[in-house]
């Protein structure tokens, strides 16, 4: 009994245990349900999986299944970010505990019961529990926002090296707060149309209606919701990485206000799509995205400069190679910032190019080609977010030596290979005709699948190691169970 109790307390009460459970759940879900589409369907693996697990896949419900799948993975990611925030930022113990309990029960309910409903027949109590899970996550978010209230003197920033007001209000905390509050508001933009369409059991994927010249308010709301929620998850993660790397100094003082302004304007733009301001909403979104991306750029400059300085300490006249070596010395520190840079080539750059050349190039092509670009673009952003979390997690669990190097570089190189291949696949029509595309498609799909597959193998190896570790009396988990305060692990 004690065996189970101690492990349970580690997995569901400690910061690192909670993160481990959420990563394991996402890994399992991705591995299982990833076998139902794309090349896995092509190879016939989907049919085997469907039979093996006795899934009930009604053709007309595909879009609904996918929506629940995306939500259940996203909720676990939101839970991971919440665990980290509650462990990094000062807050009352009551809030910390309440937020964690609510969000853990919430995401596990949403994931388990939601997927049960979506893939194993319509059991309506399961659907109810799925919705209840989402509601719990929302309430956890409300409590988190209350806990993050930045105008409480107990949480003022005394150190002038960080962004703060004259009174001492912590601007970084304000950025976390603004992101949490706008996330809660933006959740309504999915919940309201979700209830509306759900009542009539009608679902659609945004990429399938993108060319309709007249969309309803509810349709705009769904499109806005999916864009802003992913953007907010990315913004929150950028703030977390900044805190982890102890982002401070002049760049921090410029970046944090930019992050707040960017987040608020970005949200206003997205909310604007359901108002008469729809025609200018895109412009507002661009205006909001720019300061947010500038703030992230400042974090990258700060972080890389810091790594280089640390790496060349003691060298009188370091060469460019020594600086480069210093920068890339630790893949787990270098990686998250590199992934943010790499995102510009595979996500932001593609998005901007599409916006600029939309009528000239992309809308000459069939809607299906545009759909590939749209879905590829945001799948890559989601996966980049996941890899940044995994790199950070590698540091959290104290990977050292060669394992740290292999784990870190494995994630960076394999994911970059997969994302670059997927980007070439998305954009193939720019340089090859349909009749001649097959060798290129085969190669990029092979590389993308190899990259993502091996990345999952790395994750599986870590998860198996952590699973075995749980059976050891003095395993690593016994140390982690005490390491609840992540501020102690901030990069100095």
């Amino acid at each position, binding site marked *: 009994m004690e065996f189970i109790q101690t492990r349970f307390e580690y997995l569901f009460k400690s910061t690192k245990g909670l993160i481990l459970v959420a990563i394991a759940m996402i890994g399992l879900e991705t591995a299982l349900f990833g076998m139902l589409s794309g090349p896995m369907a092509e190879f016939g693996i989907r049919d085997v999986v469907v039979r093996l697990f006795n899934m009930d896949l009604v*053709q*007309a419900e595909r879009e609904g299944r996918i929506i629940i799948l995306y939500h259940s993975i996203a909720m676990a990611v939101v839970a991971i970010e919440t665990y980290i925030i509650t462990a990094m930022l000062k807050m009352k113990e009551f809030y910390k505990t309440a937020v964690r309990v609510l969000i853990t029960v919430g995401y596990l309910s949403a994931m388990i019961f939601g997927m049960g409903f979506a893939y194993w027949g319509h059991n309506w109590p399961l659907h109810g529990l799925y919705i209840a899970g989402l509601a719990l996550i929302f309430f956890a978010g409300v409590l988190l926002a209350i806990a993050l209230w930045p105008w409480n003197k107990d949480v003022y920033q005394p150190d002038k090296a960080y962004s703060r007001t004259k009174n001492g209000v912590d601007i970084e905390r304000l950025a976390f707060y603004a992101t949490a509050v706008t996330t809660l508001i933006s959740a309504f933009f999915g919940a309201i149309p979700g209830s509306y369409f759900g009542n009539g*059991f009608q679902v659609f994927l945004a990429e399938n209606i993108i060319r309709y010249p007249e969309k309803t308010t509810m349709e705009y709301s769904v499109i806005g919701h999916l864009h802003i929620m992913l953007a907010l998850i990315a913004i929150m993660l950028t703030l977390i990485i900044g805190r982890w790397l102890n982002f401070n100094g002049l760049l921090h003082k410029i970046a944090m206000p930019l992050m707040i302004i960017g987040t608020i304007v970005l949200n206003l733009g997205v909310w604007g799509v359901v108002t008469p301001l729809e025609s200018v909403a895109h412009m507002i979104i661009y205006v909001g995205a720019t300061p947010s991306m500038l703030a992230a750029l400042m974090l990258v400059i700060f972080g890389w400069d810091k790594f280089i300085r640390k790496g060349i300490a003691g060298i009188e006249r370091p060469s460019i190679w020594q600086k480069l070596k210093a920068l890339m010395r630790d893949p787990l520190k270098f990686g998250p910032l590199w992934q943010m840079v790499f995102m510009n080539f595979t996500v932001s750059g593609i998005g901007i190019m599409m916006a600029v050349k939309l009528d000239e190039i992309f809308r*000459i092509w069939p809607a299906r080609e545009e759909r590939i670009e749209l879905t590829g673009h945001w799948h890559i952003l989601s996966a980049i977010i996941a890899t940044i979390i995994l790199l950070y997690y590698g540091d959290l669990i104290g990977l050292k030596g060669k394992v740290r190097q292999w784990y870190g570089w494995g994630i960076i190189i394999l994911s970059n290979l997969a994302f670059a291949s997927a980007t070439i696949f998305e954009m193939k029509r720019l340089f090859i005709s*349909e009749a*001649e595309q*097959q*060798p290129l498609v*085969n190669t990029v799909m092979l590389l993308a699948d190899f990259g993502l597959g091996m990345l999952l193998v790395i994750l599986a190896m870590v998860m198996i190691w952590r699973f075995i570790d749980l059976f050891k009396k003095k395993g690593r988990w016994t140390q982690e169970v005490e390491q609840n305060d992540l501020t102690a692990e901030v990069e100095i």
Partner: protein
Amino acid sequence: MKPTSWYLIVAVIFLTACTSVDLDAPVPNFDIAVDPEAWAIIPAGEFLSGQFNDPITIDYDYEIMVTDVTVAQYVNFLNVALADGTLKADVDRIAGFYPGDEFHGTKHEVEISAADYIFVPLNDPASRFSFDGSSFSTKPGYESHPMAYVSWFGAWGYCGYNSYRLPTELEWEKAARGSTDSRPFPWGEEIAWNNANFYASRDPFEDMSSFGSRTTPVGFYSGQAYDGYQTLDSASPYGLYDMSGNVWQWMGNIYKGQHYRYMRGGSKDTYDMDLRIWVRNNATPTYFSPGVGFRCVRGGE
């Protein structure tokens, strides 16, 4: 393994992406039982439309082609219409006159004014017909394959020339689904590899390691066996073939504020999810591809 070995492996993989495709690779030749000249009558009445089964009534009878228009049928049209001056041969295209659409100035809408527009491209190495400067002929083996590489204007022109028209989306959907149930595919609830020609569906015409997926002759999935390849009879309730897969089919609808033309049915280049009856695709009317064809209707409106 040394780093050099890794570089070599990656280089070889990238080189495979640059392999050229043999667009004239030999094509299997089979006798197909389905007659591409046949028409099916779709009686007036109600049917369930779309993914969410909205009851819709079409209050007139109409006829629709049992199969897509074939390369042989279209080549015949090209020869006749070029000879009588309906079509014009430019350097790289065959064009015909289109009277234009009403323009509403909607965001992203492109004006389609009265002018000559491309029907089919000329000199495209992947197209299934050839042109010697005065007449057209079918590339051997492709006579009964669906006519692809045809723009919406080319499909509209063919149907109009023969006093037919392109089907509306609703007419097409009813013809594909029948009037009795909410089936997702013309033949029923589920899809198997040998129900239709879709991406990597393992039919005798495809080779995913080189040229990829190719069209199958119209009416190929009729339950016949071809050199050991057994197909399932995949006719719709009204006896239509190729309503899912092989080539997308241009629709006749012109929607207010849009220059896009819609397509139905999925194709040899799409996964099975796009073969569901309610799935829509669209493109500019000048678009053509190896995966887009059409069929006509007559009667009704």
